[in-house]
């Protein structure tokens, strides 16, 4: 019982991190049919920014955790919008393949830049949550896992409120469904795409800052997370935000349970297992568990 709940909570915490990065991918994919391969490196880079805010004195003093956390989210937003405007916007009329290659270029650049600025060595990144546990009915529940889960899902929830209840959020959804019709109603879709990149960067920053305390900070810290996020997004159908979150949480719990109860599944096998799950799901349901099959145009 104890083991089960520990595995469940650890899985949900991991899953929430996958979910927020998966949601970032879906945000951009839904609007432009482009998979942003740089999503993981954007998350890594903004986590380094948080690290800089936490460790280097700015205006005479370093920031404490939560101010640095929120400031990082703001910087991440500006960073995401800026990347879309500077790197992606000039390729507006290019094919999807060219834009995907541009995101790969971005991946390479950000990875190199982080190693260049902060050195490729592993760095310790603090967690805002204590390492102690709560004991409820004889079961130990990790405060760190609970906190990670809570913070990540709170960010996802705020984003959901934005999309559900604000005019801008509505326009972004409309633009993703039918960009030409949205433009005919006066929506400047190109700026909404930049906004989408901004939100995706914020979600990435959250996932980066939440995974760094356990995975350590390094230029390649998000590569594995990005692959888990890909798997989550695909499980959810790539176009469904709800599916991405559900896929992320499900994958996190599944991997944690496999690691706990199936002994041949050592940590090295987490990625191969995720890949296997991805392939099997796509074989059974080619549009993902939550996706709709869309008739392809000739």
């Amino acid at each position, binding site marked *: 019982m104890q083991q089960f709940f520990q595995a469940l909570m650890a899985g949900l915490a991991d899953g929430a991190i996958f979910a927020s990065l998966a949601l970032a991918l879906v945000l951009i994919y839904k609007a432009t049919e482009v*998979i942003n*391969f740089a999503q993981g490196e954007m998350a890594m880079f903004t986590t380094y920014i948080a690290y800089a805010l936490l460790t280097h004195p700015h205006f005479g003093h370093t920031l404490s955790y939560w101010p640095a956390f929120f400031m990082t989210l703001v910087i991440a937003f500006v960073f995401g919008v800026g990347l879309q405007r500077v790197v992606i916007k000039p390729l507006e009329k290019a094919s999807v393949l060219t834009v995907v290659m541009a995101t*790969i*270029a971005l991946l*390479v*650049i950000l990875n*190199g830049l982080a190693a260049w600025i902060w050195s490729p060595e592993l760095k310790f990144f603090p967690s805002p949550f204590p390492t102690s546990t709560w004991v409820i009915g004889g079961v130990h529940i990790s405060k760190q896992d609970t906190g990670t889960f809570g913070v990540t899902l709170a960010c996802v929830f705020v984003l959901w409120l934005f999309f559900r209840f604000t005019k801008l959020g509505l326009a972004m959804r409309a633009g993703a469904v039918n960009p030409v019709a949205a433009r005919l109603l006066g929506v400047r879709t190109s700026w909404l795409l930049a906004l989408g990149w901004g939100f995706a960067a914020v979600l990435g920053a959250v996932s980066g800052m939440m995974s760094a305390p356990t995975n350590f900070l390094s230029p390649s810290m998000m590569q594995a997370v990005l692959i888990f996020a890909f798997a989550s997004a695909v499980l959810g159908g790539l176009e469904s935000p709800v599916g991405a979150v559900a896929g992320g949480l499900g994958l996190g719990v599944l991997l944690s349970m496999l690691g706990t109860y199936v002994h041949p599944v050592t940590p090295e096998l987490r990625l191969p297992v995720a890949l296997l799950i991805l*392939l*099997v799901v796509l074989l059974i349901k080619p549009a993902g568990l939550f996706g709709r099959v869309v008739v392809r145009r000739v």
Partner: protein
Amino acid sequence: MKPRLAYLGFVVLVAAVVIAPLLSSNYRTFQLAFVGIYLIALLGLNILTGLTGQISLGHGAFMGVGAYATTILVVDHGWNNLLTLPVAGVVAGLAGLAFGLPATRFAGPYLALATFAIPLSFIGLLKRFPHFTGGTLGKQLPSVHSQFGFHTNPSVWVYWTSWIVALVMFVVAWLIVRGRFGRALRSVRDSEIAATASGVSTAGVKTVAFGISAFYCGVAGGLFAIAVTYVNPDTFPIDLSILLLVGVVLGGAGSLGGMVFGALFVEFIRITWGPALLDLFSQVHHINTRAPGSSLVVYGVVLLLVLYVAPAGAAGLVRRLVTGKAAVAAWAKQSQMPAEDQA
């Protein structure tokens, strides 16, 4: 390209391969050997990416499969290293088929996503089964410098071995591209639904393309292992897979000759060209041009600039110069809507 021009290009390539080691230092010859090895891998990936339009971010791992096949056969079973190359290709090709069989049934973005997971999964598998792969330490191969009564130093030996294999496989790739199978591949790229309608099994064609590309990468990987004389899980990182795709795109996806440019880029951008470009800047600004990551930044920026300026890659540029026609860029699809109101 016109056949006559293509023959001429191939003759120039062979001549360059024969002359280059005469003009090069030992170290440069060793580097040029790797150009040949990368050329083999790019020729393979080009059959997938250039002809069917599917991108793969995982083919470095198929090089890894080939490299491990060669190493295990040589070290643990005492095979002659050259004889391991076909086996390396076949093992990698089978791995490619096994992956491609389910994966090529997915639409474009899903396949690219799935391939991205291959390199890291491969590394995980290598570490999980250390008794077979040597685990994190990897395995050491003997250095080769004489065979069949032909004595020379390792650089020169590796150079000739790599390039002879590369040229043979170049011709084979050319035959594949020109033949019936090449037409089927191109019809898949141009319109999947139309290809299906005319009786081409798109998933089947793509799976075979995936297998062939993995075979090429496996052979390249076997040569790579022989050349560097060791393999470990870090020899084939995800960066290599990305670099291979970048090589195909920069060389000009779909063009065989372009892959030579791509291979030069893959070998030289990180160690030679990148730092050299940075040195130009460092005279103006005070930057540490030998810092880790710096050459990655340069190569990312170069890739980005090429995407803006010449989306059809080096081959597209050459074609433009040769034919004088501008818009050959098949990738630069024009849309009809005027640009956004900037008010």
